[in-house]
Structure formats: C-alpha cells, structure tokens
C-alpha cells in the first residue's frame, strides 16, 4: 500500500493507539487495549521512519 507511506501510517497508527488507550482507560480488557497500543505505536513509528527516510533521500538529492 504505497499510498499510506509516511503520513497514512502515522494517521492510522495514531488512531489505533487512541482506541487502545480508550480500552485500557475505560474497561478491564487491558490485554486487548495493550495489543492495540502496541500495533498503533508500531504503525506510527513505521510512518515516522518512512517520512524521515523520504526526507533524507530528498536532502541527499539536493546535496548531490
């Protein structure tokens, strides 16, 4: 899914993190909540890494 590269994964990760946070905060199902928190954080991290990599490539291109 190249369309989600960077910003798309960040937005999706943020949303999934917040759903997990809601489950941890408002219910006893902390296991399910923690799983969503982990997935959300992972996707958000992936998006940030992709954005930084893209910025690095652009920067290298300008220098080159």
């Amino acid at each position, binding site marked *: 899914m190249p*369309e989600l590269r960077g910003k798309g994964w960040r937005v999706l990760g943020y949303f999934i993190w*917040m759903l997990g946070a*809601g489950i941890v905060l408002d219910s006893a199902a902390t296991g399910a909540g923690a799983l969503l928190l982990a997935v959300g954080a992972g996707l958000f991290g992936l998006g940030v890494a992709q954005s930084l990599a893209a910025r690095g490539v652009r920067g290298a291109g300008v220098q080159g």
Partner: protein
Amino acid sequence: MSRPLFALLNLGLILGAMSWGLHWYLHAAADSSGVKGSRFLGSRVRAWYFTNLEPFERLFVRLGVRPIAITYAQVAVSVAVAFAYGAGLVFCAGWLVLFAGTLDILDGKVARRGVGASPRGAFLDSVMDRYAEFVSYAGLIVLFAHGWRVWAVLLAILGGVMVSYARARAESLGARCETGWLQRPERFVLLGFGSIFGSLADHVFDTRHLLLTVTIVALAVLANITAWQRIIYVSRALDESPHA
C-alpha cells in the same frame, strides 16, 4: 502506570497533535481556496484535515472501493459507537464518532475522484447519514437511561433531524439552505471531542461525565437553534421568491 497518569499521557498526545495542527494552520502550506468552511470549522482547518485523509482517499480509489461501501462502513462504525457508549467506553466512542465523521467525508471525496458519484449514491448517503447519527445517539440513551440527561440526548437527536429535514424540504422547494451554526461536521467534532476530553477529565478529576453532559446540552441547544436559523432563513427566502 495508573489510569489518571495514563489519561494525562494521552491528553498530552492529543494536545501535541492539536498544536501540530495549529502550527500547520498558522503556516498553512496547502491551498484551502477550494474548501468550503463554516463559522465554527473554517476552510483552513478543513483543508488541514483533508490533507491527512489524502493517503486513504488515493488508496480507496486505486482499490476501486465504491463510495456506497464507505457509507455502509460509516453506519457500521456508528453501531460500534452506540455499543461503546452503552458499555461506558466513552473515550473509544469519541474516537469512533470522529472516525464515522471521517468516513462521511471520505465517501464524498472518493465519489468525486472515482466513478461512483451518482444521484442514487447521494440519496443513499443522505439517508444512511440519518441512520448513523441516530444510532450513535442511541448509545448515549443507554448510557444516560436513568436521569434527566436522556432528555438532553433526545433534544439533540430532534435538533439533528430537524437541521437535516429543513434543508431537504427547502431544496425540494427549490431554495438553497446551507446556513446555521451546527451542521453535521460541527456536530461530529463537538460530540467526538466532548466525549474524548470528558472521559480524560473523568479519569483525572473524577468528574463523572460532567464534560460529556455539558457537550450534550450544548448539542441539544445549538442543533435546535440551527434548525430554527434554517426555518427562518428558508421562510424568508420563499417569501421573497416570485413563485411564492
């Protein structure tokens, strides 16, 4: 980590995202000239939000997802909102309200970009929107079943229905009607953020749904004011119409 502390952490994450949005708003890079705004949700705020949706819009178009499928997904998410409110998962419900609102935006955007735009799609979208809105509020009726707050929820439902009906009836009579303070996107934002911040306040200050109650009362009052703004506006417009 204790729940109040975890609530504060998430409050920080939300405020961080908001300050990033504010930074974007103050140094707006995207063109907001083609985006229609309103009194409470201006064109630049909407343009900022739309830029966050662009990746999903492009993905749905490439995958050939039909706009009506997104509309049905919005109804399904609204059912999840109802269950979340009914189960007391107010923080989750708030995010799902915002998600349902996002799907409501995306179906229109995908329809305009792809090949799915049609009068049938527009009709089904409007009808499903009413179902989705009512279903969301049904969860609040369950949450506040015992006490005066259920009446505030019912008034908010009435206001939302009348805002939409006034516009539909006006357009069937040939009058335009897009005026009013609290249109559908504003109602999504108010209910969503009222639920999210209300839940966080409950965990940190033990406020027992105080902020959510204030939000619902505000929705009940403002939605009915909006309905009357439309009634008066359309009455005047039809009065001045040469066909009246």
